[in-house]
């Protein structure tokens, strides 16, 4: 009973967390190539986006202090668990000002995918990351198939991921 009350409380206080009106995920009509980047992960080693070519990549721009971002993370962990073997790779790009809070956060949330530290340059490369979260879904061919601004319904993302995992069109 308590659990029901808690779940109901969480639901009613968070159900407006969907993307704001007018800002929904939009398919990238021309499926432009995702800009490549090489950014440090939380141990300082470089992660190159291009090394994930052949996988479906969910690129998540987020920050530890961003409420909607935090709410999405456990779902992303689940998605990585569920679809990792089929070729999904989630990559978090933290827009925090430093790695310390990100390290703590990753441990606390048991994040099972790589996180790199973003900067203004990558934000501009991806058309300006001037609000969080923003997620880009890349096909196996490295092209951008959708962009979602704001917290996104996970079932929508999952549907797109499944489509891309099974799509020949997005294979290089």
């Amino acid at each position: 009973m308590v659990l029901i009350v808690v779940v109901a409380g969480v639901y009613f206080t968070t159900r407006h967390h969907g993307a704001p009106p007018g800002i929904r995920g939009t398919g990238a009509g021309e499926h432009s190539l995702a800009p490549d980047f090489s950014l440090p992960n939380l141990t300082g080693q470089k992660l190159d986006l291009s090394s994930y070519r052949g996988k479906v990549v969910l690129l998540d721009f987020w920050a530890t202090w961003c409420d909607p971002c935090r709410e999405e993370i456990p779902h992303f962990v689940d998605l990585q668990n569920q679809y990792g073997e089929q070729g999904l790779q989630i990559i978090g790009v933290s827009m925090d000002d430093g790695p310390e809070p990100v390290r703590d956060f990753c441990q606390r949330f048991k994040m099972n995918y790589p996180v790199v530290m973003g900067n203004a340059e990558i934000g501009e490369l991806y058309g300006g990351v001037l609000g969080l979260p923003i997620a880009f879904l890349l096909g196996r061919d490295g092209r951008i198939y959708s962009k979602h601004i704001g917290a996104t319904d996970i079932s929508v993302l999952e549907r797109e991921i499944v489509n891309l995992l099974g799509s020949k069109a997005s294979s290089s």
Partner: protein
Amino acid sequence: MSLPVKFRQVLLIFIFGTASIAATSLAFAYQASLIPASRLINPDELVKILQSAKSEKPLMIQVGSHVLYAQAHIPGSEYIGPASSESALQSLRKRVEPLPRNKFIILYCGCCPWSHCPNVQPADNALHAMGFTNVRVLYIANNFGADWVEKGYPVAKGD
């Protein structure tokens, strides 16, 4: 006097349930939507003030992350750090401490949809606790990109 077992169970469930809802509400209490409407300013209003030769120019402080500030910010505004962190709040207090308490100050962030911004409300609270009486918080409904940059309002980049 002993209460019936069934009644005690219901009472306990009610107490725990109420406490859970209160705790959940508290977890979401640090949100911009708690700022009174009288302390908000819309982007178009601010642009008019900035463009007017007669209007008093405010001190504008961005209380989001530096990565966002470096990509785009209001020209002349200062970066102070995400005010959901105590270190940024300390920087904010230090920055405004010498100023007259009637100084016109604009706070803004735009990191997230308004009701989820964790930064503007702590900053607004801090300034009011210090006695500042002329503080306005820029109402950014969705994010700084959609509600400022894409509207064609003035933007600066870099540090």
